[in-house]
C-alpha cells in the first residue's frame, strides 16, 4: 500500500457536468489494489454516479474502516475530506460527523470483514439510528489484506482457493439490514456498472440509511472456480435482470415509455424518482417481507438476487429523530451555544 498521485493534465474536451467539472475532477489517487479487483469498479461507479448527479465533491465526506475496501476512498474524489478510521468502527465516526454537519453527503465504504465481523455491532446500530448515509460494502467473502481468510459473508458452500471447506453459515447483510429497518437496501455486482451506478445515485438521494452490498470479487484470493464470490459465478447466477432500476434526477423529465404494469415509480425526498422495471410480481420492494423472501428463495437456488431489494420512501432519518436544528451544529455561533453568566447566576441560585 503506497501513495501514488495521478497526473493532473487531462484532455481539454472531456465532458463536463453542470458544475463545469469533468470525471477526472471526481477521481482520487492511483489505486494500489490488485489489478482486476472488483473494488476499483465500484470506485469507478461512485465517481460516475457523483459526476452525473453534479455533486460538489467538497460537500461529500468519505468514511471507511480498515481493509482493502476501506482503502478505496483514497481512490475517488480527492476534493472530498476522507476519514479512514479504525477497523469496523466507520459507523460510529460517521454518526458523530453527521450529527456535527447534517448538510454533507456521507459515503461510507466498508468490507465484509469490517462490517459483518468486527463491525457488526456498529453496523446494526447505525441502521437503527437511521443514519443519513450511503453505506457500501465491497463484499468479496474474504480478508484480502491478511491473505485470504474466510469472512463471515462467505457462503458455506464456497471453499477457499486451497480447497479448505468453510464450516460456517454466511451472514447475509441485506437480510440483516432489512430486519433492522434500513430504509434502502440493495445488492449489486461490481461487474455490472449499468446496474450499480443508478443504485449508488438512488442511495445518495435517499434520505436515511441506504445500504448497498456489492459483490466484488477478490481476484487474488477468492475468484477460483469453486467460489460463489467469483466473477464467473456471480455473472452466471445474477438475477439482476428481474429488477432493473432507473434513477431519474429531480431536474430530469421522464422520457422513456414504460409498459403499463411493469414498473413501480417511487419518488424520494429530494424530488428524484426511482423507476423500477420488470417488477417481479412476487416482489414489491416496498414490502420488507417480500424482499426477504426474494433474497432467501433465490439464495436457496444458488442465485444472487440483485437490484433494489427494499425501500421505504418515507423513512425519518437520525436528525428527524434527534430533532436537531436545521442548521449544521458545527456552524452554530458560540453566542447561541454558551448561555453566559446571567444564566449561570440562576443555576447557582438553584443549587443554594
Amino acid at each position, binding site marked *: 500500500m503506497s*501513495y501514488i498521485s495521478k497526473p493532473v493534465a487531462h484532455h481539454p474536451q472531456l465532458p463536463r457536468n453542470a458544475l463545469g467539472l469533468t470525471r477526472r475532477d471526481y477521481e482520487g489517487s492511483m489505486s494500489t489494489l490488485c489489478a482486476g479487483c472488483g473494488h476499483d469498479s465500484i470506485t469507478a461507479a461512485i465517481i460516475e454516479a457523483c459526476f452525473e448527479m453534479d455533486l460538489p465533491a467538497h460537500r461529500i465526506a468519505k468514511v471507511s474502516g480498515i481493509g482493502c475496501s476501506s482503502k478505496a476512498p483514497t481512490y475517488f474524489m480527492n476534493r472530498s475530506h476522507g476519514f479512514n478510521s479504525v477497523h469496523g468502527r466507520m459507523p460510529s465516526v460517521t454518526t458523530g460527523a453527521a450529527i*456535527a454537519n447534517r448538510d454533507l453527503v456521507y459515503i461510507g465504504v466498508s468490507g465484509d470483514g469490517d462490517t459483518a465481523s468486527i463491525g457488526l455491532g456498529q453496523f446494526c446500530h447505525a441502521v437503527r439510528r437511521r443514519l443519513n448515509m450511503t453505506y457500501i460494502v465491497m463484499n468479496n467473502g474474504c480478508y484480502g489484506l491478511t491473505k485470504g481468510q474466510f469472512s463471515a459473508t462467505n457462503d458455506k458452500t464456497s471453499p477457499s482457493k486451497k480447497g479448505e471447506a468453510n464450516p460456517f453459515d454466511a451472514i447475509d447483510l441485506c437480510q440483516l439490514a432489512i430486519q433492522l429497518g434500513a430504509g434502502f437496501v440493495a445488492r449489486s455486482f461490481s461487474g455490472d456498472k449499468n446496474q450499480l451506478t443508478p443504485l449508488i445515485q438512488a442511495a445518495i438521494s435517499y434520505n436515511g440509511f441506504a445500504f448497498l452490498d456489492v459483490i466484488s470479487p477478490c481476484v487474488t484470493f477468492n475468484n477460483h472456480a469453486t467460489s460463489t464470490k467469483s466473477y464467473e459465478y456471480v455473472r452466471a447466477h445474477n438475477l439482476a435482470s428481474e429488477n432493473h432500476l432507473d434513477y431519474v434526477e429531480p431536474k430530469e423529465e421522464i422520457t422513456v415509455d414504460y409498459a403499463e404494469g411493469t414498473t413501480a415509480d417511487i419518488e424520494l425526498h429530494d424530488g428524484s424518482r426511482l423507476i423500477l422495471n420488470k417488477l417481479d410480481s412476487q416482489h414489491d420492494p416496498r414490502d420488507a417481507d417480500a424482499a426477504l423472501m426474494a433474497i432467501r428463495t433465490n439464495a436457496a437456488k444458488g442465485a444472487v438476487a440483485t437490484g433494489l431489494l427494499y425501500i421505504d420512501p418515507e423513512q425519518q432519518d437520525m436528525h428527524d429523530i434527534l430533532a436537531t436544528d436545521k442548521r449544521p451544529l458545527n456552524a452554530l455561533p458560540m453566542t447561541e451555544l*454558551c448561555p453566559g453568566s446571567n444564566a449561570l447566576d440562576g443555576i447557582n441560585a438553584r443549587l443554594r
Partner: protein
Amino acid sequence: MSGINDFVVKFATVNGSGSASANGIFAKTLFRMGIPVSPKNIFPSNIQGLPTWYEVRVSEAGYLARRDGIDLMVAMNPQSYKEDLAEIVPGGWLLYDSTLPRIWPRADITVLGVPIAEMCARKWSDPRQRQLFKNMVYVGALTALLDMDLKVLETTIGDQLKGKEKLVAANMEAVALGRDYAAQHFQCPLPIHLRHAEGAKGKILVSGNDAAGLGAIYAGATVCAWYPITPSTSLAEAYEKYAKRMRVAKDGRRLYGIVQAEDELAAIGVAIGGGWNGARSFTATSGPGISLMSEFLGLAYFAEVPVVLFNIQRGGPSTGMPTRTQQSDITICAYASHGDTKHVLLFPKDPTECFSLGAEAFDLAERLQTPVMVMSDLDIGMNDWVTDPFAWDDSKVHDRGKVLDAEQLEGFKEATGSDWGRYQDIDGDGIPYRTLPGTHPTKGAFFTRGTSHDENARYTEDGHIHARVIDRIRRKFDTAATLVPKPEITIRDKGGKTGLIYFGATTPAVHEALDLLERDGVQVNALRIRAFPFTREVLSFCAMHDRIFVVEQNRDAQMRSLLMTEGNVPGTKLIPALNYDGMPMTAAFVRGAVLKELKPAQVAAE
C-alpha cells in the same frame, strides 16, 4: 473532639427504600443553615435490597474530607447492624427502629430507640407510605436531637417536592412524629448538635458530574455520545438536562445531539467523528470504558482530532468496585492506546473545577488537536460537594484552535509563505492547521488516517517521514505543557525541603492534614497537580524539595511513576502515600503517612 457543628452522622439503610432522598434533604438542610457539610454516598452496585450508607460530616471549620469514627449512627438496616455498631466512637450514639427492641452489645455508647415502624403503621394505612415515611421520621427525630432548623427543613422539602404541596405536608407530619418522640424520650439536643453558621454561605451544593455536564454546555459542546456506566452516567444525563433547558431553539429544534451508543467503542467513535467535523464533542466513561476506547484514542492522537473525554474513575482493576472511588486510571489514560501515545489530562479537585476545567478541556482539545481527558472520580462525580459557585467570564472567547476557513485557505500561502498541508508545522509549536469537510471546492481536502502519513496527510511507509511526524506530535506535547492549567502551590515553610504532591478528590483530606501536621510541628509545602503534561512549576517544585510525598488513590503510585518517567524526578525522593480501599481519603491517613516517615516514634506512640 466532636462537638457543636463538628461531628459525623451516618445513615445505614437498605437501597431502594427511599432513604436517599430523605438523607439528601438532611444534608441540604444543614448546608442551608450555613454549615459546611460533606455527604458521601456509599452505595452497592445494586438496585434494591442491599445495604447502603450515607455519611455526613459536619464541620464548621470547613474540613470536608471524609472522617473515620461515627458520632451518630442511624441504623435502619438489620443486615448491617453489626458493622454499623462497631463504627461508632466511644461515647457516641446509635439511633434505631425499636419496634422490635434489641440489646446492643456496647456499653460505651448511648442507644436511642425510636419505634419508627410502629409509629408509621399507626399513622398510615398504605404500605408504600408506611415504608417511605419511615425515612422522614428518623430525620424528624434528628431535628430534635441535633437541633436542626425546622423552617429550613420545610423549605428544603418544599423545593424537593415542587408542585406536590400535599406531599410536603405529609412529610412534615412524619417529621413531627419523629421530632415529638425524640423530644419526649431523650435529652435534646445531644452534645453534638447544630447551629447556624457562615462557612457554607455563598457556596453551592452540587455533584461533579452535574457540574461537568454544565461545563460542556458552556464550552459549546454540541455532540455527546456515551454508554451507561457507573459512575459517569449522571454526567451525560446532566448535559442532557441542561441542554433541554438552555439549548432548544424557539421552534423546538435542538442545538445539540446526544447518542446513547451501543458501547464505549462507539461512544468515543461518535465523539471523534463530531470533533473531526468541527463540532465540540465529548464522551463520559469510567475505567472499563477507557480500556475499550483505547484504540480510538490512539487514532485521535495520531490523526490529531480534538475530542474531550470525562473519566469518572472508579475502583479497578477489571469490573472492580463500580461504586467505590479511586484515582487508578492515571497510567492508562496518560498513555492510552498502543504505540507511542501520550494524552493531555486535567485533574479537577471539586465540582467547581469539574465545571471550569471541563469547559477548558474543549479549548485545549481544539487548540492542541488531540484528546483531552478530564480525570474526575466517583467521589467528586457522584457526591454532593459544598463548593464555590460556578463562574463564567462573558468576555471570554472560546479558543477554537487553528481551523482554516475558505478565505484563509485561499490566502494561506501569502500569509505564511508555505503551502498548506494538514500536518505541516508552520508556527513551530507542533500544532498544524486543520480544515473541516465542506470548506472549499478545491482546497483543504485531505484524508484523515491512522496509518502513517506525511505532512500532507498522504500514506507513507517511509520510516524517516514517520519518525519526523511523530517527533512533531511529541513537540506538540511540549506546547501543551505551556497551555494546561498550572498547579496550585502552598508554601508553609519557605526554603523547607519537604513537599507533598496531590491532586483531585484528595484535596480536602490533604488540606486538613497539612493543618493537623502544622499542629504536630511539621510544616510541609504542597503542590496540587492540575494537569498532565507537567508544567514548569511542577518540575521546579520537585527540584526544590528533597523529600516529596505523593498522595494518590491507587496501589501502584501511578502519578509518582509519571513524575519519574515524564518529569525525570528521581524516584528516591518521591515517597508514595497510597490509599486504594475505594473510600474517599481521610486527613488522618495523610497525616499518618507523613508522620510515619518524619516522626516514626510519634506514630508508634499513638
